[in-house]
């Protein structure tokens, strides 16, 4: 039984710190927690896979949306927080819209992303994880998000910079950035909002 669970449906091996029992370690604790925090009726899912079929990016996920719901029911927190799914999700809300049982799948994935962000688990998509963090930092700096400053801070992050130089994306991005600047699409001087103190307080909540 244990061997079967070591791999997800797509054959992606999941490295676990310890062998996993079928039901999560603490009963339905995780299910109740996620249900309580999101307000989504996750127990109502009957695995019809309509969310996965509607999802435009399910082919790029290691844990499909319907499996995310199942994993939450089973309490498999670690697999979920390690998955690429929570970072690849576009929040396009197809899954939520088409669910026959009104399970808010997108909100659940969103919440798991939030959990992963606050946990010690290493994110599967590093650049996307850093992007989310940078976005919030930029928001706290000026109150509005300026694309030029956002991309600047993102590319200054050592992990992102390393990855982008390795894949050659940096050169491409600089060329695109120059093209955008030439077309007048970049606002170099950001606007600073008043009441920044209250905004920072919200971001710290």
């Amino acid at each position, binding site marked *: 039984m244990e061997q079967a669970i070591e791999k997800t449906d797509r054959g992606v091996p999941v490295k676990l710190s310890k062998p996993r029992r079928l039901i999560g370690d603490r009963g339905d604790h995780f299910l109740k927690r996620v249900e309580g925090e999101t307000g989504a009726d996750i127990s109502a899912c009957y695995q019809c896979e309509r969310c996965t079929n509607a999802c435009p*990016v399910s082919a790029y996920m290691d844990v499909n949306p319907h499996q995310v719901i199942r994993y939450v029911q089973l309490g498999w927190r670690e697999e979920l927080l390690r998955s690429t799914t929570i970072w690849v999700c576009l929040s396009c809300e197809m899954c939520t819209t088409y669910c026959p049982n009104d399970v808010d799948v997108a909100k659940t994935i969103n919440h798991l992303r939030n959990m992963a962000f606050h946990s010690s688990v290493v994110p599967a998509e590093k650049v996307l994880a850093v992007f989310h963090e940078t976005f919030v930092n930029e928001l706290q700096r000026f109150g509005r998000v*300026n694309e030029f400053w956002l991309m600047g801070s993102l590319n200054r992050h050592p992990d992102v910079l390393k990855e982008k130089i390795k894949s050659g994306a940096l050169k491409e991005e600089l060329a695109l950035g120059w093209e955008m600047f030439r077309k007048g699409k970049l606002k170099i001087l950001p606007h600073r909002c008043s009441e920044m103190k209250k905004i920072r307080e919200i971001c710290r909540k």
Partner: protein
Amino acid sequence: MNLAFYPGCSLEGMANDYERSITAVFDKLDVKLVEIDDWTCCGATAAHSMSEAMAVLLPAKNLAAAEKMGLDIVSPCANCFNRLTYSRKMILKNIYEVPWKVTGKAKVYDMTRFLAQPDMIQQIKQKVLRPLAGLNLVSYYGCQMVRPPKITGFTDYENPQTLDKIANALGAISLDWSYKATCCGAAIGIGRRDIQFDLSKRLIKKAHQAGAEAIIVSCPLCQNNLDMVQNEKGGLKIPVFYFTELMRLAFEGEKCSIQNFRMHLTDPLPLLRKKGLAD
């Protein structure tokens, strides 16, 4: 009639042509847009996945400012519209303690839906100086504007009509296609360009197959994304317009300068010249 205008961060930066076209269009209509003073970011697309509190409280400042003005809000950006509507719904439920004085009485309109109301369509028809005859369009709504229907209030979320109605009122031909509300993947472009390119290129291809010569959108992210993925040698080229750009073109007629389209990465001028809409 006055409306509070919430532009959103993109309209200051990479979509400032959208903002200029909106200003020009609303100058001609009997609606006055009053920009919300000192507005802040609504938190799309990253902040709301970081914490629920940010999702509700960040847009609340703008809702509070609009309430102070006593006006309803109109938002041109699909993401902002979605976040503002969501925040308003949660404020009405009274779960969070909001640091600003806000009751949630100011309604939030999406700009296309506001302009697609029967009386506004009537007004648009009257203002058209140069009909966009013979221009075959597909309208692309994207994901955040129509979904989830419980938040946005779109009942026709599988086949939304607001942009089509506006395009038809301008004299253009809006074609049917199945990808009106399929996500273009703009949000993921930062980390996974492969996914972004796959999703957007499929949209471009399908628009071409539907017989479209141009795509009209109302979301700044969608426009930039769909425009950008065509920015390489070879391949299909379909100009992507903001719907207000075409409204401006129809309203201003001969006077509409081709400079208004200079920010497009996929040059729309050959198409407009072919249709006799630009000189």
